[in-house]
């Protein structure tokens, strides 16, 4: 609180002092922007779904909301975000309950230097050594609070230093209850640095970073079964990495590698093996054609600023999943999430648009996309004859670089066709085959692997310039888990202000007849410039939402939801 008031004073002083005590100038030439969102729900009981007032915890009205405001005056900017969870919506961590200002900053910037005090989001390379970010839908925020300095001594060179601790819910930083994170990063665009390369066809950027996390406590007693382990811990855990991007006409190659020293933690059940992670991607593209192939290998690479955390939060780095993200309801029913303890993945995709006015492309052209991704375990062997794989207090296991294990965590093949027919009709057709290792991804050891065939048809019909209709038909067919699903949607949009939708997801193939439920939903929305209001009523099926290695469980619910978003 005191810090916050102090910041306000600093902002006011810094803005007003430097020779321009002209309040009008401070207001007139200032620029303000921001955004606002409120997600409110009125949960209802639903006998068929087994939702009682007890499962709603006696709090049927819930809301998550935030307002973020940024102020900028010449080289100076400041901002804050107010958040309120009163109480949090079902499916968000109850630890969010409360309201306050978890994010505020003051920043000064010129051509040479940028200094940020307070909270900040930063990413080194693709984030394998360091990334702080916020995802409202996911309920995730690991922002740093501290100091960041960016130094741009020469064109094409950016040096970044960060120092601070991370946000986790509303828990105040005290008594070393999380680590202090320090990091430096260098980013170099060779074509900007060397004049001789300015117009070269080959574009080269490279970078490197070093991150260290300090957590107090040199020893830990850790019981497993009837054994009590006394572990000595590294108080400083270092992680470093390098990256390279090459671009030559239509080709692009990117690679990033990171190494972490021993980091015994709850996530790896306190083994002392160092961690390694590497990713590659190669793409070729030209007008109407895009091809990409990528791969990654991760070995013991969870990196958190609290070694006892297994929940979502305090991640220092970011390990994105390799598979494609889906937005249709049924293809995203079984989402894959990165297994930071070890995985190896490959993905390839091709997108081709058959040009307009050709035999195959017809009058409007036709887009075809083919995608494949697979993730397996990595091969782990015991460090010696008397030690089990992953045994606490040991080096855990041996593995070779880029080893591939036998266990399949995920596989997906997808075909998507996008076609415009005449001036009025647009169609998207999808077919997917997914293999999902629920036991590993969701941590339910006894669940079988789920094999599913999924089809989606999405048709838009523009009645006139203002009125359009859209239909979605989806099916998911599997013999495992909850069996077959069918889904349908009908949407009416009156551009630019109104939309109405009616949808249903039906679990008709559930082996338990009482669970063959309809998850219907009716929604209406209004858009005015940058404000959107949506009111919906219906049922929400149970599911999980995943981004990167982070997933959030969404419990089933029934009732009204109101969403308001605005930006200014």
């Amino acid at each position, binding site marked *: 609180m005191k810090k916050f008031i102090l910041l306000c004073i600093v902002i006011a002083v810094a803005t007003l002092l430097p020779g321009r005590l002209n309040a009008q100038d401070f207001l007139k030439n200032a620029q303000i922007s921001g955004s606002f969102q409120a997600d409110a729900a009125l949960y209802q009981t639903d006998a068929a779904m087994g939702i009682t007032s007890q499962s709603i915890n006696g709090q049927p009205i819930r809301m998550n909301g935030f307002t973020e405001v940024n102020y900028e005056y010449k080289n100076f900017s400041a901002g804050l975000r107010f958040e309120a969870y009163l109480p949090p919506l079902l499916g968000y961590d109850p630890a969010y309950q409360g309201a306050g200002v978890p994010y505020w900053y003051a920043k000064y910037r010129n051509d040479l230097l940028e200094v940020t005090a307070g909270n900040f989001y930063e990413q080194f390379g693709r984030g394998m050594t360091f990334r702080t970010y916020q995802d409202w839908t996911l309920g995730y925020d690991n922002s740093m609070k501290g100091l960041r300095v960016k130094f741009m001594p020469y064109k094409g060179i950016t040096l970044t230093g960060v120092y601070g601790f991370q946000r986790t819910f509303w828990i105040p930083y005290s008594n070393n209850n999380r680590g202090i994170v320090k990091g430096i990063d260098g980013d170099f665009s060779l074509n900007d640095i060397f004049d001789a390369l300015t117009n070269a066809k080959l574009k080269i950027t490279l970078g490197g970073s070093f991150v260290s996390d300090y957590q107090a406590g040199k020893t830990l007693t850790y019981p497993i079964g009837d054994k009590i382990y006394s572990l000595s811990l590294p108080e400083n855990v270092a992680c470093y990495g390098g990256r390279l991007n090459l671009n030559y006409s239509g080709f692009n190659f990117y690679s990033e590698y990171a190494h972490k020293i021993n980091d015994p933690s709850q996530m790896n059940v306190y083994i002392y093996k160092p961690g390694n992670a590497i990713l590659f991607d190669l793409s070729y593209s030209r007008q109407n054609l895009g091809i990409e192939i990528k791969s990654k290998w991760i070995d013991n690479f969870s990196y958190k600023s609290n070694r006892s955390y297994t929940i979502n939060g305090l991640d220092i780095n970011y390990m994105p999943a390799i598979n494609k993200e889906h937005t249709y309801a049924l293809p995203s029913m079984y989402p894959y999430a990165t297994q930071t303890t070890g995985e190896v993945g490959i993905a390839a995709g091709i997108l081709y648009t058959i040009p307009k006015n050709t035999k195959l492309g017809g009058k409007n052209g036709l887009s075809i996309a083919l995608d494949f991704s697979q993730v397996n375990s990595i091969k782990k062997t015991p460090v010696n004859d008397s030690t089990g794989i992953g045994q606490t207090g040991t080096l855990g296991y041996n593995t070779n670089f880029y080893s591939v294990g036998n266990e399949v965590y995920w596989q997906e093949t997808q075909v998507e066709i996008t076609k415009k027919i005449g001036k009025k009709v647009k169609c998207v057709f999808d077919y997917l085959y997914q293999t999902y290792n629920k036991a590993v991804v969701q941590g339910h050891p006894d669940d079988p692997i789920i094999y599913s065939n999924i089809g989606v048809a999405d048709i838009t019909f523009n009645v006139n310039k203002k009125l359009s209709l859209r239909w979605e038909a989806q099916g998911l067919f599997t013999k495992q888990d909850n069996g077959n699903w069918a889904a349908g949607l009908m949407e009416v949009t009156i551009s630019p202000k109104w939309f109405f939708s009616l949808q249903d997801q039906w679990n008709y193939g559930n082996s338990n007849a009482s669970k063959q439920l309809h998850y219907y939903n009716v929604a209406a929305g209004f858009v005015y410039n940058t404000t959107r209001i949506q009111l919906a009523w219906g049922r929400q099926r149970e599911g999980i939402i995943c981004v990167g290695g982070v997933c959030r469980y969404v419990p089933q619910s029934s009732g009204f939801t109101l969403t308001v978003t605005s*930006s200014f």
Partner: protein
Amino acid sequence: MKKATLIVIFLSAFVLCFAQSEDASAKRKTIPDVNIKDIYGNVFNAAKIDNGGKPVIIDFWATWCKPCVKELSAISDVYDEWVKETGVKLYAVSVDDPRSVSQVKPFVDGKGWTYTILLDQNSDLKRAMGVGPIPQTFILNGKGEIVWSHTTYAEGNENDVIEVVRKLVKGESIK
């Protein structure tokens, strides 16, 4: 805690007053001085978005965002005509994170889009411009001032976008 809430309410009210006042004096007018990346991975300062005195469209999108892709596909069908008629230039700012950022270039080329693509991998520009859910579209006049903004995409929205651009080119009021 109560104090913090009060301060925030006060600040928000203060900000909203200015953001919504008739002359919109404190509302964001220009693109903030934020470093993002171009499609080759080089640093690109967003304040340098420019079209030599002609209007600019900035569209925040991502490869996984269906309405965004629909909007950019719809504009792509008529983009050549728009450019010929008004000289407008569209910057498509991708907020794809490290998971999908490598798909952006093959996706854009594969779709046959000819926009200038920028990469905002950690949403730095998105946050600085107060962008909420995507897609969000901005129109800049010839002086680089933000004069229009809209969130979401509905079929036919692209007609509103070009109408605003045409008015700007003719020097008419867009109100």
